[in-house]
């Protein structure tokens, strides 16, 4: 068991996940301990989210064996459908709520605007 390919895949996935977790954590920790000045927010957002997605892919391949599935790859198809719904749900919510916030900012009622 401890010499099989499957075991090596698990160890590889575990090590890669550990590395990506520690990189993301150290960058944020360094930023916070430097008084929130070390990196730009955009850089941290992009880095942390990319590492999370990288780790998702690593675990799908090495822990959930998505790459070794035989055709017609139902698991992959179900996953892709779910990813589609998730992207619409999350990006759509952020988009429409930001728009709403933006529109509300321009609609601060003044004395003249109020009908009564």
């Amino acid at each position, binding site marked *: *068991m401890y010499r*099989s390919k*499957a*075991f090596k895949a*698990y160890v590889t*996935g*575990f090590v890669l*996940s*550990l590395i990506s*977790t520690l990189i*993301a*954590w150290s960058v*944020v*920790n360094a*930023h*916070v301990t430097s008084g*929130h000045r070390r990196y730009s*927010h955009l850089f*941290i*957002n992009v880095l*942390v*989210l990319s*590492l*999370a997605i990288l*780790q*998702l892919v690593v*675990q*799908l391949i090495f*822990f*959930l064996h998505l790459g070794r599935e035989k055709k017609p790859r*139902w*698991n992959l198809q*179900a*996953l892709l*459908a*779910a990813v589609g*719904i*998730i992207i619409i*749900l*999350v990006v759509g*919510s*952020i988009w429409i*709520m930001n728009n709403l916030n933006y529109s509300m900012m321009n609609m601060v009622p003044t004395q003249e605007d109020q009908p009564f």
Partner: protein
Amino acid sequence: MTKVSPMHKEIDEETATSLLGFWVYMMTDCILFASLFAVFIVLKNNTAGGRNGAELFSLPFVLMQTLILLTSSFTSGLAMLAAQRSRIKDTFIWLGATGVLGASFLALEINEFAKLDHSGSSWRTSGFLSSYFTLVGTHGLHITVGLLWLGGILVYIYKKGLNETSVKRLTMFSIFWHFLDVVWIFIFSVVYLLGVI
């Protein structure tokens, strides 16, 4: 295990169908978590004058939680490997490790929730905290259910040994546990890491 009889093949197909069904359930669970993430991201800045993530979360604490859950995801995979190779002793060791790590994770989370509540940051305080407790609490509830399920599987294997049913259940459990770790990675990144910057 390698006997190829028509009977055996049929059972294998049935197992494969159950596993696919469980996988599809996991996908719907991911959509549930995605909607909770969407709510959290939208409400993240609505602290209603209360404390925000930067004031509430501790980075070393959440790193410890993450490493514990990641390791338990790894050990649950090893338990499945051992069960597929009919190594009952290794199965018990790795499943036991998964259970202990999962329980430690849950204990840390309950402790954190209690601390937040005591310091006056309950789920009633603000939109930010309502969505935080709902998202992280739903994950914690899944972990709790997973631990009970794990206990059931341990009892079953202890009584009946490693047969086709126990391997099937263990495989489903390890899919469930791996996905809970994947969801936690996103909680770790979006709620905690991006919450304190």
